[in-house]
């Protein structure tokens, strides 16, 4: 089922009537989430990701805008009647129920014609538990589970009623690195198997990039960019998005454009046809550097880290806004350990941003 968000806005009113300090948690969010896709909702802490999920689930009322499930306007529908599955940031498992009772609970709530016979309920609970591999823990209480196990119980509880929409609020935040990798692939697999339209909130860009069909990058309640992970990475609309995506992070420099040439420091490093003369912020992806004795971009070499296939070159430059410049080059390049290293740049890995509003300047 597709989900349509129309100008979705959430404003938390200020507590103090005299001081105007209302929080705009989500501002004018418009997006059509295609049926059966996994969407990564990405942004730094406090940017309104959870609030967006709560509005879609019906737990919070939007201050403005509309939400559609398929063609039905559900904006006024209460959470009980929306039938979404939601995994909370801190799971919210019922502490007095066993794992089995927790997973059964949403099924036991079904009324009227949806009511299921007992054995069907049990069967479905076990199917959901198997999906997240906790079927051997069914008789434990949540307090007797590890964080990762609790998380999976929460996912099973959300999945058991076969919701048409699954919302996951940072479901992997408490897992260790390996389990995280494993669980996110599991979530991807489950999502593909069931075809449930899923929104996955995270502030880990790598996580979002690796499993999402589409990612939505938010900042302070405002959507910055929506697109396939690779497209957003290759073509960020502003400095924030460029900085937010990618490990190692993008290298940022002070620069200027003069006569359709980009200068970093005194060196003309790239032709930028069609850009008027102005100071700019330059973003260069780590993989955007070539080691090239004939290049024009000279940096002070600090360190070379060999990482098997690739080589990470750590250098510095006065114009750099990051403490060091990280560039990743193919290990075929022989690097002379000297005082300096000279680069030429791949133009499709170089992004220019306006100094004024950090928006992208295309060339």
């Amino acid at each position, binding site marked *: 089922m597709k989900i349509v968000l129309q100008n979705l806005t959430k404003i938390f009113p200020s507590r103090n009537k005299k001081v105007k300090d209302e929080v705009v948690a989500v501002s004018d969010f418009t997006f059509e989430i295609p049926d059966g896709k996994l969407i990564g909702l990405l942004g730094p802490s406090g940017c309104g990701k959870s609030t967006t999920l709560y509005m879609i*689930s*019906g*737990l919070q009322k939007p201050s403005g805008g509309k939400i559609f499930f398929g063609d039905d306007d559900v904006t006024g529908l*209460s*959470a*009980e*009647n*929306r*039938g*979404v*599955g*939601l995994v*909370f940031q*801190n799971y*919210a*498992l*019922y*502490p*007095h*129920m066993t794992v089995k009772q927790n997973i059964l*609970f*949403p099924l*036991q*709530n*079904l*009324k009227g014609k949806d009511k299921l016979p007992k054995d069907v309920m049990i069967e479905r609970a076990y199917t959901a538990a198997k999906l997240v591999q906790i079927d051997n823990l069914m008789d434990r*209480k949540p307090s007797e589970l590890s964080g990762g196990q609790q998380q999976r119980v929460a996912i099973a*509880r959300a999945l058991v*009623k076969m919701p048409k929409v699954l919302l996951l609020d940072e479901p992997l935040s408490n897992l260790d690195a390996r389990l995280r990798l494993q669980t996110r692939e599991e979530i991807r697999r489950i999502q593909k198997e069931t075809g449930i339209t899923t929104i996955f909130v995270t502030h880990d860009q790598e996580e979002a990039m690796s499993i999402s069909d589409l990612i939505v990058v938010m900042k302070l309640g405002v959507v910055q960019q929506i697109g396939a992970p690779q497209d957003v990475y290759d073509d960020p609309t502003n400095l924030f998005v460029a900085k937010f995506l990618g490990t190692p992070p993008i290298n940022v420099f002070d620069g200027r454009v003069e006569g359709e040439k980009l200068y970093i420091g005194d060196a003309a490093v790239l032709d930028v046809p069609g850009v008027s003369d102005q100071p700019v912020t330059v973003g260069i992806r780590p993989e955007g550097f070539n080691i090239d004795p004939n290049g024009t971009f000279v940096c002070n070499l600090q360190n070379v880290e060999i990482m098997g296939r690739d080589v990470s070159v750590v250098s510095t430059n006065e114009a750099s806004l990051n403490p060091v410049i990280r560039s990743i080059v193919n290990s075929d390049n022989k690097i002379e350990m000297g005082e300096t290293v000279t680069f030429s740049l791949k133009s499709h890995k170089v992004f220019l941003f306006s100094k004024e509003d950090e928006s992208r300047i295309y060339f």
Partner: protein
Amino acid sequence: MVESKHRWKAWLYLAPAIILLLIFTVWPIINTLHMSVQEGYNQSLAVAGHEFEYGFGNFERVIEYDNFITCLKNTMILCVLTVPLSTILALVIAVCLNSIKPLSRFLQTIYFLPYVTNSIAIGMVFAAMFNIVGNNIGNENELITTAGIINNVIEFFGGDPVNWINAGSSYWANITVMTIYIVWNALPFKILILLGGLQSVNKQYYDAAKVDGTSRFRVFTKITVPLLSPMIAYVVITGFIGGFKEYSSIVGIFGEKMGPTGADGSLNTMVGFIYNAIESQQGTASAAALILFGIIFIVTMINLYVSKKKTHY
């Protein structure tokens, strides 16, 4: 662990409390034990130097009193009626109060008022409310026409007035009045405890329940009550202990005769029995006090045992 050289300091800080406890709690208990096992102990004789034989005669005498059985029965009936009733009512009121946003502070204060009001005073008000309607003769043959608001209400709705507490009233009418009074009096404390418990329940469980499509009734029975079960257990246990010590509420409504006119003592309780005996037969009173202690102890143990099985955490 406290380091041993600092231990005397710890004792020093505890000393005032320990000394007070020894004087006002431990010593009276020992004294009670001692008095209870001296046959027919009586303080004025003891002061005059009389020696009493040791034995369990006091206990036998207490149990053989018809009066004692009445007291025990009254106490039990009141406990069994009032504790569940007040707990359930308090739970419902606490849940309602917790879900009301405007005026919640104000309403909480109102519900707490009976707690800080003297129970004898409340009893007198209740006695006035449950009086016979209309032509009750007051002092010097004056006619009290405003008495008995409850019966006025019953009559207004076309019912027959009931003799609740006056001379000739039935035992069960008396018990009804006592139950209403005790429940009403017990509510504030229970509401306070349960409301505190409710306010500390993580709101996210309710959000989760909403997303799971849970009906209000199921939220109450499957989530609120289990999560509150430690507080409910506490309220029930203290309720039973309080119930077994019921006394001043009866005095409040029926006066020290512990019953309607012409049926003195018909509503007497265990504590009432002890007070009656305390003036002349301290040995019997002590034995009765110890029996009461034993009963409360056993009931509390049963309570604790049940609540351990039923509460979660």
